[in-house]
């Protein structure tokens, strides 16, 4: 193999057996005691609670945990130690999420009072700095995508898809095509929100499966699907399998020939920055996830921003406000003047911390730096691809012997057949090394799947460490499968046999109240 041994072979995760915060509650204990209202003020203002309308007052106090500040701090600090995260391990096993390094200097900008103390309702004359950042970031993204305007309104990727399909809906209706154009075509390896949002907006959905050999969307099936009923194509390239569809323009041309629109999901743009653009592939719309490609962390790491770009003919449909620049008065302003706008889809005008990080990240790299990001992430990915395919039990379905872009969806099916250890077993065992791997989202077309996305952030040494861990687990699966089957040993939680609590709606407990209603003790179901 030639990989170096992993460094963390003495890893053992902190384990606190920490109860749920409600179980730590002590009646009467407080983190903050509010001072009594001074008599002079009370005389002047009266009891302000009496001023509230009856319908707005609670009949009883909310059920909140009661505890001191110190206990609350300890509780959350302990929980944080029982966790893994992008800054804590080699996080390339969280493929499709672009888990890369978010430069900490960008946090300084975001936390600076110049940004953190701004209020979105301030007069725009006092917001010129942040509006300039938004305006300039838009110019960068226009250049990266080839689109003519960019809206920062959506709060994340699926929200961006909602904005895009809302624009498509508005465009269809405005052109008198409501009765004829009622289908949206997408592909099985594109984001599941494509289907969900399309239905929400009243369209039927046609899903195109991948060609079993090439891994690209089946063009013959696509040709059969496109018709005058096609309102739009929502597609990703490369899709989650990491294979670039070089015929993408045939797809967009066919849809355009039938009068439809084409939208490019560029949530995972890391491998194509500075290489290809939505405009040249004839797309009418696209979106980026600033929180994946452009510095901000993804995966519950904080708020996101899914920015939507469109060509000229769709600018008037964009959600408002956008940030425009008035050359005469030399000032930036919130622009609501778009005649066919789908309106507001989020409060205020964008997720400022995420936009600031993206601006700082792009500025620090420049055009050549962005291209370098793409090149290194592709290089890292293909290095890992080669190394993993040299291991027993690992395959990478589709596009045999081809290089991939920024990620690959692998399969442990062979490992499972030969050792009975499948992905779930590897997933638990890898915790013992302080690492993480996940089985990606639907569709589970590739059996026992896992997706590796190395990004540009990781050094060869770190990639080799991760590969050495996988290699050791595979070796164990073939020689002592029980070690893998019974894992983890050094992690917070021991073996969980099945994810039945996620699969069975009857067992769901997504709130504390629901949990108390359904269970006694630790997940012991009430009769």
């Amino acid at each position, binding site marked *: 193999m030639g990989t170096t041994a992993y460094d963390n072979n003495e890893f053992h995760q902190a384990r606190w057996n920490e109860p749920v915060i409600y179980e730590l509650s002590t009646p009467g204990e407080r983190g903050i005691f509010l001072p009594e209202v001074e008599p002079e003020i009370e005389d002047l203002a009266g009891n302000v609670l009496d001023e509230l309308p009856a319908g707005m007052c609670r009949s009883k106090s909310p059920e909140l945990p009661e505890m001191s500040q110190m206990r609350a701090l300890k509780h959350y600090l302990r929980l944080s130690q029982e966790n893994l995260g992008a800054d804590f391990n080699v996080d390339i096993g969280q493929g499709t999420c672009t888990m890369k390094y978010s430069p900490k200097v960008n946090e300084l900008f975001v936390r600076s009072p110049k940004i953190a103390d701004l209020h979105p309702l301030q007069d725009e004359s006092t917001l010129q700095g942040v509006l300039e950042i938004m305006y300039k970031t838009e110019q960068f993204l226009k250049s990266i995508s080839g689109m003519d305007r960019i809206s920062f309104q959506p709060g994340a990727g699926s929200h961006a898809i909602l904005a895009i399909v809302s624009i498509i809906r508005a465009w269809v209706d405005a052109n008198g095509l409501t009765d004829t154009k009622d289908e949206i075509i997408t592909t099985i390896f594109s984001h599941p929100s494509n289907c969900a949002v399309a239905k929400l907006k009243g369209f039927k959905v046609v899903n*195109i499966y991948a060609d079993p050999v090439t891994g690209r969307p089946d063009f*013959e099936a696509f040709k*059969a699907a496109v018709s005058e009923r096609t309102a739009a194509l929502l597609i990703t390239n490369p899709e989650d399998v990491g294979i670039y569809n070089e015929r993408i323009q045939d797809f967009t041309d066919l849809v355009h020939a039938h009068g439809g629109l084409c939208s490019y999901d560029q949530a995972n743009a890391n491998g194509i920055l500075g290489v290809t653009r939505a405009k040249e592939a004839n797309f009418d719309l696209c979106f980026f996830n600033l929180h994946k490609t452009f510095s901000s962390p993804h995966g519950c790491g904080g708020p996101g921003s899914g920015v939507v770009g469109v060509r000229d003919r769709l600018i008037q449909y964009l959600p408002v406000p956008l940030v425009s620049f008035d050359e005469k008065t030399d000032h930036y302003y919130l622009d609501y003047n778009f005649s066919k706008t789908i309106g507001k889809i989020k409060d205020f005008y964008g997720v400022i911390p995420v936009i600031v990080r993206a601006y700082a990240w792009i500025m620090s790299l420049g055009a050549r730096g962005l291209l370098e990001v793409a090149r290194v992430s592709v290089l890292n990915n293909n290095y890992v691809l080669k190394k993993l395919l040299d291991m027993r039990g690992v395959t990478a379905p589709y596009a045999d012997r081809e290089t991939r872009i920024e990620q690959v969806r692998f399969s442990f099916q062979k490992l499972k057949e030969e050792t009975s250890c499948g992905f*779930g077993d590897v997933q638990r065992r890898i915790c013992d090394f302080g690492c993480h791997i996940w089985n990606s989202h639907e*569709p*589970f*077309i590739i059996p026992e799947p896992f997706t590796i996305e190395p990004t540009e952030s990781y050094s060869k040494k770190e990639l080799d460490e991760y590969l050495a861990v996988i290699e050791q687990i595979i070796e164990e699966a073939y020689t002592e499968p029980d070690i893998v089957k019974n894992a983890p040993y050094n992690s917070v939680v021991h073996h969980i046999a*099945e994810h*039945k609590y996620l699969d*069975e709606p009857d067992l769901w407990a997504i709130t504390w109240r629901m949990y108390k209603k359904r269970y006694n003790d630790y997940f012991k179901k009430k009769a």
Partner: protein
Amino acid sequence: MFKLGLIINPIAGMGGSVGLKGTDGKETLGLAIQKGAIPSSPERAALALNKLIKVSNQFKLITCPGVMGEDIARKCRLDCDILSMALEGNTNSKDTRNAANLLFKQSVDLLLFVGGDGTARDLALVIGEKQLSLGVPAGVKIHSSVFALSPLYAAEITESLIRGRKTRPRLAEVMDIDEEAFRAGEVRARLFGYLQIPGVDRGLQVLKAGSSSLEIVKQQAIASFFAEEMNPDLLYLIGPGTTTRELLRKIGHEGSLLGIDALKDGAIIGQDLNESQCLELLDKYNPGQARIVVTPIGGQGFIFGRGNQQLSPRVIRRVAPDGIIIVSTPDKLQALQGRPFRIDTGDPELDFKLAGVYHVLTGYRESTYYRIEN
């Protein structure tokens, strides 16, 4: 306490070991024994039972006498209750059916059976949808979706149920092939029925995507859309399968799971039709006014020629290709892992003609285009 029923088909798999592609029928068994075949299913059973020893205080084992269960249970040092049934000479399918019936009457929580497609067929005949069952693969032919991937997986699933895991059972296809044709090198699997199996999403023969226990919800979604789009002027010949059965349930009818039902303007006008009955009905309608609704059968994705032979070439020709409506849950499509749908109508010319890309209804207002190859 959890009651676990166990049936071992001691001759399952014997034919395969001596190249006979199956062990169905007395003569084949005789030939297998003559060729030196050694029973392998007891070993497969032992592999599974040994894994259950650690939870032996949490279940009560009920099994058949002698080679059909008792011998292996004792060998694995598992206490068991023995069914009151007599075995004479080599066991046969009658014994399997008899045992299944007795275990059903004992209200076992799970019936674990060790065998192949033939054994599964016997169970489908007797207990079918009534009894939670799971197959330990030991036969020559495993085309049915009712088996665990291996004896160890069967033990894993069984253990989780013994430990109190609740699953939503689902119906899985029992397929079997014509052994004589198979021995002549031709594979012709047929749908024989259904067994109720645990709704787990790993460890089973046919890979299922996501949560298999929710497959019924996906079938209902297809049914809702089908009901909305149904044209009252058209004749629909509804083929066999659990997905197509939901279409009829949606509009208040209980379809024949294994047969062809005819639907017109929301009413059933023919049930469990054979080929000539289908043709008779089609005679009454103009070309273009009839539809055939089918769903892929089994893990191999057959649209015609497996389990729906009533839809003969003559019937299909009246309707195809524009009148063919294919319905399939995404799980079924995904289990094909990119392989196309297949057809084997018995008429090669028709099979050739039918090959192409077809619209497939996969959910509520959701569809795909998928290839059929012959």
